[in-house]
């Protein structure tokens, strides 16, 4: 493994053009992740056609680097503006933004930098040493029933923590699941809920929906505060967390690495569920559960460690099975296909140099988060000094372009603004926007795997539950739901 890693490093840093692509990926991912309104997905969508001119190794490496640094970059906007750069940064905003409101933005961003780097590097190391055996384990043990069970568990956790009440948390997730049914059904390809619009046959795209629910609705919330005279600019500071503050959360970091890696390795799930579950587990194990959501450093640490820990793991199903773990890894499949390659087990034998350049690049990209991220962060914190009258139209315009670019459809911009209005109204009423987005993202995966799983077991639930991983996840999900239902009926409302 070490020889392969060194060979990958030598190839990566032996060619000035490849170094240039690596540096571009690192800075571009961080920058696009950290600009409110656009995300690493916007950058990837713009760059996709240009990868045809690169070698396959350079193209895939560029996207892998953007994936690592963009996942970190999205935390910046989540913390500073309550606008997650990507869905995997959504739980970061739960505590990161309240920390900004308390004048602790520097601490939150500093923790995000360090934990993203730790999670990413740990994940890259495990990815390098365990890709092949883990891929074999996944092939043997993870099928559609297990993926459905994991989706169910993830949604149960998300609905149980977000929203003002458990009912609102569930309604948020169910709305996301309903939106995900728009478009063709995953088994028969029958058009559902397209209301006569042919553009809706492909469904509601993630990027405009995410931008609408997070970025646009946040602008509307701030605008409402401005109109009523309650708007106050976020407080500015660059006071990074001390070593001891971070050391106190070492268990949360280790737990989130495991959670992130486990979620990331499962095909179709990606870093989003990892972040939610990392955060959910932090809440579950904490003695002071009520402090979460009010600006607790552990919330930021758990979410950011988990989502970056998932980046390396997400490459395993992509490279070993050809199954993407999320939107950006799906674009990597397109890069492979543009060069007449198919990601899958054969890549390990036909193009080992490609695999090891990508592995080495991801390792160094995660390391660079630590160094470049700290420098960049101090600069980005100055964004808080810019008046919101300037930032608001800028964010709305960037979001419009980001929504339009991925598919070239004006409908996506319209969908984004409608999602923004719905998000604004739902947020005012205490619903959970991350819950809606998670439902939207996991809905199709869940339905597809449920259908495949049911066909596999010939609609026999007994066979379904004879699979241990599947049973454990479903029972855990049901227990989570029952526990939250119990608290809904027997807990007193919060005194404010």
């Amino acid at each position, binding site marked *: 493994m070490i020889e392969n890693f060194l060979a990958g490093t030598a190839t990566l840093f032996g060619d000035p053009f490849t170094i240039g692509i690596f540096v571009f990926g690192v800075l571009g991912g961080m920058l696009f992740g950290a600009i409110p309104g656009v995300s690493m997905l916007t950058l990837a969508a*713009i760059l996709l056609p240009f990868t045809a001119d690169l070698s396959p190794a350079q193209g895939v490496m560029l996207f892998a680097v953007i994936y690592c640094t963009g996942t970190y970059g999205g935390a910046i906007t989540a913390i500073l503006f309550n606008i997650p750069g990507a869905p995997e940064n959504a739980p970061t*905003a*739960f505590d990161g933004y*309240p920390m900004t409101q308390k004048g602790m933005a520097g601490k939150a961003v500093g923790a995000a930098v360090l934990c993203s780097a730790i999670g990413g590097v740990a994940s890259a190391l495990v990815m390098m040493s365990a890709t092949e055996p883990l891929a074999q384990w996944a092939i043997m043990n993870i099928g559609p029933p297990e993926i459905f069970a994991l989706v169910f568990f993830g949604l149960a956790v998300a609905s149980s*923590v977000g*929203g*003002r*009440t458990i009912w609102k948390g*569930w*309604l948020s997730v*169910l*709305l996301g*699941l*309903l939106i995900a*049914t728009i478009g063709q*059904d995953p*088994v*028969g390809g*029958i058009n*559902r*809920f397209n209301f006569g619009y042919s553009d809706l046959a492909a469904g509601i795209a993630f990027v405009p929906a995410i931008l609408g629910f997070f970025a646009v609705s946040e602008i*509307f919330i701030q*605008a*409402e505060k*401005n*109109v*009523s005279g309650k708007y106050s600019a976020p407080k500015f500071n660059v006071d990074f967390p001390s070593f001891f503050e971070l050391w106190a959360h070492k268990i949360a970091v280790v737990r989130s690495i495991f959670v992130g890696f486990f979620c990331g390795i499962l095909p179709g799930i990606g870093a989003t569920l990892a972040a939610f579950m990392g*955060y959910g587990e932090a809440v579950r194990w904490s003695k002071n559960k*009520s402090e*979460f*959501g*009010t600006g607790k450093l552990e*919330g930021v640490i758990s979410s950011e460690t988990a989502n970056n820990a998932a980046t390396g793991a997400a490459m395993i199903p992509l490279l070993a099975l050809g199954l993407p773990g999320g939107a950006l890894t799906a674009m990597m499949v397109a890069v492979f296909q543009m060069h007449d390659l198919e990601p899958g087990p054969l890549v390990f034998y036909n193009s080992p140099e490609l695999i090891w350049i990508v592995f080495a690049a991801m390792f160094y990209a995660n390391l660079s988060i630590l160094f470049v991220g700290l420098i960049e962060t101090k600069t980005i914190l100055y964004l808080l000094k810019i008046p919101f*009258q*300037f930032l*608001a*139209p*800028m964010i*709305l*315009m*960037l979001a419009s*372009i980001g929504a*339009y670019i991925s598919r070239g459809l004006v409908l996506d911009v*319209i969908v984004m*603004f*409608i999602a*923004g*209005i719905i998000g*604004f109204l739902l947020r005012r*009423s205490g619903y959970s926007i991350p819950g809606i987005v998670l439902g939207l993202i996991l809905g199709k995966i869940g*339905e597809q795997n449920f259908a495949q799983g*049911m*066909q596999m077991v010939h609609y026999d639930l007994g066979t379904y539950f004879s699979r241990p991983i599947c049973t454990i996840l479903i029972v855990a999900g049901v227990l989570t739901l029952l526990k939250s239902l119990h*608290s*809904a009926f027997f807990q*007193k*409302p*919060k*005194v*404010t």
Partner: protein
Amino acid sequence: MGKLSRSDILEAFFWLLIAVIFFAVSFSFNQPIEIYKFGATGWPRVILFLMALVALGNFYHAYSKGSKAQEGRVGAKENDEPIEYTSTSQYFKTGMVLILPLLYALSLKPVGFYSGTPIFIALIMIAWGERRFRFILTNTILIYAILIGLFMLVLNAPLPQGNMSPFYDISAFMLKTKTQLDQMF
């Protein structure tokens, strides 16, 4: 009425209405799929049934316990104090902020990005309460220049050009100028 507020009743009505409308529409694609017993409607109908059930639970919760946040809910604190509107002008201003972006999106197809964007930027600043003419003008130009510089010149991103004269001609002029700049450098 228990602890119900008007918004609780509206919320329940909203969710039940969505469930009913989508359930009714689901009959339009209620076709059997040979290889899948539950068909195209099975999954969405389960979601709609659960939505209606949970909406009733939400209604009952509001009736018996009010709308206060439950203990341990993440991120619920910021929503605990909804903003109260004291005058119609506040409704109008918030309405403008909500509607303007949607109008901009609807205008993208006929007007295009290049012509519609500066007008939208200026209008959204006005809707935000900005009244200094020089601030609006300079910032509109600055934001527009950043967007054009980044997406049109550097990243060469395809943006909507519009299909109505004279907006289409303006877009064509911009793109022609960009091609000339590319040839020069």
